Every structure is written in C-alpha cells, then in structure tokens.
C-alpha cells in the first residue's frame, strides 16, 4: 500500500461556531503503482483529502501513512521536506505557481529546494521539460509569457523534476482544450506505465477516469462511499444511481451494441479498444 488513511477526520475552523467537518472518519487504502481517481461533487472533500497527502493539512483526528511516513493527529512531524519530495502535488490551475525569470529556472526551483546541486537540478529540469513536451527554444523565455496549456505543462514539469514517487494531480485537465486535455492524460499515463509512478488524480471528468484510471474513490460529504475497481463502478447501474454519477458515454455505447448482438468485453475501456473489437466482429 502506498497510502493508507485510518479513521482520519479533518475539521476546518475547529472550535469556531462555524466549524466544518470536511473529512469524516476516512478509512482508505491507495495502491502503489496504479492510477487512482478521486471523484465526487464539489465540496465533497476531494481537495482537503489531497492536501493531506503532502502534509499541507494535518489530520484533526486519526492518522495517515504515506510510504514510510506517518502523520498522526496532534503530533508534530519532522520529515516535511522528504515527504514533500516523495509526494508531488500539482494544484488546480497550477500555472499560477510560476515565478522565475526563465522556464528552465522555474522547473529547477523544486529540485534545488530539495537539495540537488545546481547542475543536477538543471539536468532534471531539462529531462522533465522534455517529458512534458516543452521544446528547447522556450527554456530561456519567461514562464509568464507562455500560453495557458504550456504554462500548466511547465508547472507539472516543476513537480516531475523533483522525482516524486507519488504524483497527485488536482483537476489537471480543467480549462484545457480537448487536444491539451488528451496530451495531459497521455502524459500521466506514461508517467505511470514507463516510470512506474503512483498517480492520484482528482477529477470531474468521468470519461477520462473510465478510460485510464485503474482504481476509483468516490467521496460524498466528506465520506468515502466507494473505493475499488473503476470498471466495476461504472458498469454497475445501481452504484451509479446510488452515487449520482453519469454513466460514461463509452459504457452506454457498448451496452447498446451488446443489445444488438455484439460480443464486447468490459476491458474495451477506450474508444480505440472498443472500435478494434467492433471492427473485428463486423469483418467476420
């Protein structure tokens, strides 16, 4: 297990008349080496949950284990930096965190903070920028002059360059055009498959979640209502109704085809896989 929550609660404005319990007695295990989606309506506690993962918030009650680090309610921690190096958190609209005078410097900022030498930091920055597809002629330009999609990729490179074991992305595709969103999705799938990173994505995009996420956690009003296989969740009409989730279009499409006599496997989770299966049967 990469991460396990044990009866964790988080209360905003504790001891105030308007105290608000954002996370309520969470018991949750997140697996290592897979892509996990965290979904749920606005205000269900997704962002609060995610901010625990690198100790930006500390549990009000209960505890949390991340890799070898333990966060226990009301206990001081001394390993903030190593934890934050191992768990990279990419915020919503992360393009607003850029501040250095050049793209390369900005990406190297994280590694420098985590104790890499200037040369190592630059090397890592170059590698990360290459990975996210920022071309070399942009390295010297100001990050504030880039386009929105480029800025976000630079911001993500800034986290990848720190070489975290776990990468957490909060709404990474929000506000991007379809092509940008597709590239973003491909990016974190390849981070998972090629570099074996554990990926956790907070998202509202059920289609994307269905296409690429192995596991899904559904939050509702600060509680975990589902944690398990993504395909199991989205292929179960009862669960979808219970959690008020929209059925992914690809599931609707496949079900209609099955009604018409096609034999289609559940593993055909993307349009490409599904069309391959259809084509094979039409030819026959």
């Amino acid at each position, binding site marked *: 297990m990469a991460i396990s929550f044990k009866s964790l609660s988080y209360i905003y*404005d504790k001891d105030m008349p308007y105290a608000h319990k954002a996370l309520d007695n969470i018991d949750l295990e997140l697996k290592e080496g897979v892509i996990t989606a965290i979904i749920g309506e606005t205000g269900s506690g997704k962002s609060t949950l995610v901010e625990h993962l*690198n100790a930006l918030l500390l549990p009000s009650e209960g505890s949390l284990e991340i890799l070898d680090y333990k966060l226990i309610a009301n206990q001081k921690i001394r390993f903030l930096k190593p934890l*934050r190096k191992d768990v990279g*958190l990419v915020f919503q609209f992360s393009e*607003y*965190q850029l*501040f250095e005078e050049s793209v390369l410097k900005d990406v190297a*900022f994280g590694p420098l903070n*985590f104790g890499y030498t200037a040369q190592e930091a630059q090397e890592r920055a170059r590698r990360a920028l290459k990975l996210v597809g920022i071309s070399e002629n942009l390295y010297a330009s100001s990050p504030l002059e880039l386009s929105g999609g480029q800025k976000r990729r630079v911001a993500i490179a800034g986290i990848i360059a*720190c070489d975290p074991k776990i990468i957490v992305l909060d709404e990474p595709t929000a506000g991007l055009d379809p092509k940008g969103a597709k590239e973003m999705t491909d990016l974190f799938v390849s981070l998972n498959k090629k570099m074996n990173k554990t990926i956790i994505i907070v998202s509202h995009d059920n289609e994307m979640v269905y296409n690429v996420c192995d596991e899904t956690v559904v939050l509702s009003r600060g509680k975990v209502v589902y944690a398990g296989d993504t395909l199991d969740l989205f292929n179960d009409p009862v669960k979808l109704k219970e959690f008020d989730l929209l059925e992914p279009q690809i599931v609707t499409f496949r079900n209609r085809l099955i009604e018409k006599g096609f034999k289609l496997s559940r593993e055909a989770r993307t349009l490409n896989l599904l069309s391959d299966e259809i084509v094979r049967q039409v030819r026959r």
Partner: protein
Amino acid sequence: MNNLVFGKYIPIDSFMHRLDPRAKLIGLFLMIAAVFIPKSWWAFLMIAVVELIALLLAKIGIRMIAQSFKPMIVMMIFLLVINVLTLHTGELLFMIGSVPVHHDAIFNTLFVVVRLLLMISITTLLTATTKPLDLTLGIEWILKPLEVFRFPTHEIAMMVSIALRFIPTIIEETMRIMNAQKSRGVDFENGSLSQKITSILSLIVPLFSVAFERAYELADAMEARGYVPGAERTRYHILKFHLADYLFILICIAVFAASILSRIFL
C-alpha cells in the same frame, strides 16, 4: 488567516442587520465619541448596557465579541506593566516583590482597557452586522458634502468596495500559491536570508500576476456592463431611513449627551 473575527461580517438577519448603514455609521461615531468623553464608571456602565442590548438585537453571540478581544490581551498586559512601573500616585495597594503597586496604576489601566473593549465591541458590532458593500455606500453618503470641493466620492467608494470585495479572493489565492510552493519544497518559516527572499518572491510574483489578470477581467466586465467612471448612476438598492433608523440615531445621541453630562456633573 480565516480566523480573524475583527471586521468580519456575520451573514444572519437581525434588527441591527436591517438598520440603514448610514444610521449605523453615525451611531458608531457618536458611540465612540461617547466612550472617550466620560471619566466616571457610571457612564461606562450605561454605554456597556446600551452596547449589550445592541449585541442582543444583533443576535451575535457574546463569545464572538470575546474572540475579538483576544488580540488585545497582550497589549493590555503590556499597558498594565508600564503603568505599575511608572505611576506611583494614589494609595499603595500591595507589593509584588519589591515593586509597589499603586491605586492609580491599576485604575488608570482599567480605564483604558474598558474604553478599548467598548470601542472594539462597538466597531465589531458595526462590521459584523453591515455588509462591506453597504458600509462603503454609507461612507460615500457621509463624504458626499466633500463633492463641493471636487472630491471624487463615488470613485473612491467604488475603489474601496472593489478592494473589500477582493480581500477574501486574494487571501484564498495567497493560500493556494503558498501551498503550491510548499509542495515544491519552499519553507516559508525557516531558512537563510537569501532563501527567505526567494520564498517571498515565489509568492509575490504569482500573486501580482494573478491580481493583474483579475483586474483586467474585472475592468472588461465593468465596461461590458456600461460602467463609465464619474457618470451619473442610478442605484438598485436605494438607501432609505426608516423609523427604526431615526430611533437608533436618537438613542446614540442620547448616550452621547449623557456621557457629556456625566463629564460635567459626576
């Protein structure tokens, strides 16, 4: 940062909430003046009772007012220490070690403390029951006479209300950027001077770029809705004095007058 009680609007409905912001502003000035005039405890008691009734009418818990006193405690203790060390008039009450504590030291401190507490609770009452935007409308109305001297009251009021409107947004933005930079290993609390400068820069630069972006967006939105600076404008909410507002101002004048009388006769 969200724990600040002082100056926070409490969104409920009450008699005090419904009063005209102009009446409340006038009341605030009168009451604060009343707090600083008298030299007798009876006058303070009277003001405190009126204030307490107003608090009850505002449905604001006494606990919240007590919260707003919290930041003052250090200052009060400091004041007490200074007074005990410097004021040696009045009868000697007792000794702390070799430090004599005199009657006037204690009572002068108490006087200032009571005045401060009354003033804070009056101000908190105003800000807790009046939306910031209504407050600026009230201030605009009070500054209106200055227009004779070509003082741009409306523009100033618009600027103040925009600034007030964006405080929570900017705080939220600050928190988000701080969190994002912390995730990149920035330590805002510790570190050498040069590290501190970098960490502040990593916060300020994005904050400015966000603020400018928001300013442009807001300017566009205002122009798109036909805002012209300095043009004659009508209002959606027209402020109107009601009977309760006159009564409220009358009570405040009475308290003000009573505190002047107490200074003369008590």
